[in-house]
């Protein structure tokens, strides 16, 4: 689990920056913000969002993940609404959120256009969507073995298929089709693990491997 935790700060920073950039919430906190974490796993991102004041709903298709997430939230003394369901199913209920994110999830989705439409439908006016995922390049294929470690939590064994990695242009087009303009993208790169005190990941210009995108209703 260590690599996943090391990957958390840079993703949290990007989510908080996006929320501020798009005017969903000012001041760096999430008080009163309705948050949907799609593919929440054990709650690595959901718990920080709740600590920052967000009203967090976390969904995951894997029952084991939801059980682990609930146990951990209890230990942390956090009230998070975890549910074992999918984005597509939840969208049907008509609920809306101010911040909707899917971190390291979309590369496992079979029908990405339907997934994008579901996220768009659940996004309240003035809300923020954030996606983090892996690019489909030679570099990312080469690193797929490493990348697998980072997505370990959400994926039942064997479902991770590098052919499903998503190119930034495809992501932009698919969300545009759902009425969401992803108008900001950034790359993430790990610091060398052997560097003493190497601190996980940093933001980089290159989107060649791990990257993030954010936007709101067009």
């Amino acid at each position, binding site marked *: 689990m260590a690599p996943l935790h090391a990957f958390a*700060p840079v993703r949290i920073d990007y989510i908080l920056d996006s929320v501020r950039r798009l005017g969903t919430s000012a001041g760096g906190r999430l008080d009163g913000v309705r948050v949907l974490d799609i593919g929440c796993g054990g709650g690595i991102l959901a718990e920080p969002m709740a600590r920052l004041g967000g009203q967090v709903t976390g969904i995951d298709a894997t029952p084991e993940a939801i059980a682990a997430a609930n146990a951990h939230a209890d230990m942390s003394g956090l009230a998070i609404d975890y549910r074992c369901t999918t984005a597509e199913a939840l969208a049907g209920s008509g609920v809306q959120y101010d911040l909707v994110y899917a971190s390291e999830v979309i590369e496992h989705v079979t029908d990405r256009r339907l997934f994008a439409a579901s996220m768009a439908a659940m996004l309240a006016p003035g809300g923020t969507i954030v996606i983090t995922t892996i690019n489909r390049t030679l570099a990312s294929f080469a690193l797929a073995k490493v990348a697998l470690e980072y997505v370990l939590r959400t994926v039942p064994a064997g479902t991770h298929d590098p052919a499903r990695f998503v190119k930034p242009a495809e992501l932009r087009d698919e969300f545009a089709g759902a009425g969401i303009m992803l108008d900001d993208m950034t790359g993430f790169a790990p610091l060398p693990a052997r560097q003493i005190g190497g601190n996980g990941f940093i933001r980089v210009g290159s989107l060649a491997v791990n990257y993030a995108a954010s936007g709101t209703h067009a």
Partner: protein
Amino acid sequence: MHDVAVVGGGLTGVMMATALSHAEMDVALVDRDNDPATGVDERTTTINAAGARMLTALGVWDRLATPPAPIRRVAIAEGILPTGLAARRRAQTDLSWQTNASPMGFVIGNTALQAALRDIIEERPVTRIHGVSVSGWQAGDDGIELSLADINGTGDSSGASSLRAALVVACDGARSRLAEAAGLGLREARQTQTAIVTILEAERHHDDTAFQRFLPTGPFALMPLDGTRLSLVWTLPNAEADRLLAVDDAAFEAACLEAFGPGLGYLRHAGRRLAWPLRPSWRRRISAPGMVLAGDAAHAIHPLAGQGYNLALADAAVLADLLVETGRRGLPASHMSLRRAYEAARWRERAAMTTATSGLNSLFSNAPAGIRHLAGLGFAVLDRLPVKSVFSDIAAGGQLAEAALLEGRLPG
């Protein structure tokens, strides 16, 4: 459960708990000593300009009962001062820094510093647990459980035998038991040197100058105090230190005069002589899951450049910023990103200070005669040695670490 438990009530621990209480954290301080105010500590601490800004921001500076003595000049010399006035000037100014603006550093009596720190912490929202020793340590998933032992039945742990915290900051001194328990190994060289620490009263005024005189047996350092008093830290081979600790005042004064030269006139012994055993040491890592080390626990460096406490101040300043950053991310203080960032942020200064001070010291005292001879050729050689960077760094009041408190701002 506390966010942070600081262990150790020395100069580092009390300052650390005060600094971290400004980082939007719930802080506890576990302090073994019941009444540390008793017992006069004649040692002094050198604070650089950044450290002074930090202590001012924390409110400690204004509470110092005796005003800090400014350092406006640093004079470094090799060997014993020549007797002629012109030659003496040359020898002294060949390697010296001077500032006409604000002082490059200050010297504070430890007793005054400790009292001011204890005064300020009373006003901070810090849970104080006195008279209790940490006897055990257990790392859990999201924090650490410390076992507490009431030393003499007078502690005020309110009967609690344990304390839980997301992060433990070990400020328990050079022989940190917490660091050892966490497997953070200490590589120690054999102790071959001892520093004699005491107060001297000079015939002539020191002109706010810090003197470092490098002798073949080890450096003789004088830091300016109030009036014509100076704080002496004199590094010597063990046997020689033992001898000079035992001789009477007149013999000690004669030895000081011989070592330093006549630059300040007669040097009268005006305090108790303390022995500070010097063991050059190095810890490869200063963090473990749920724990970071600070102060002497993280780096017991050679006293040569008077940088020990400045490192401790930077530890606290950096950690305060990192805790604010971690809190802003909604992450707990136990999160691994915090200790990794701390490790990375402290690495450079720790390494620079350790190699500079120990390298410098061994160059002048333990090195083969050839190198000593080289150094004797002239001060120009010193330009290529770490000495210059260490002292010009002090002179600039500069620091290798960056943090809000070191710039005189509260964290956050």
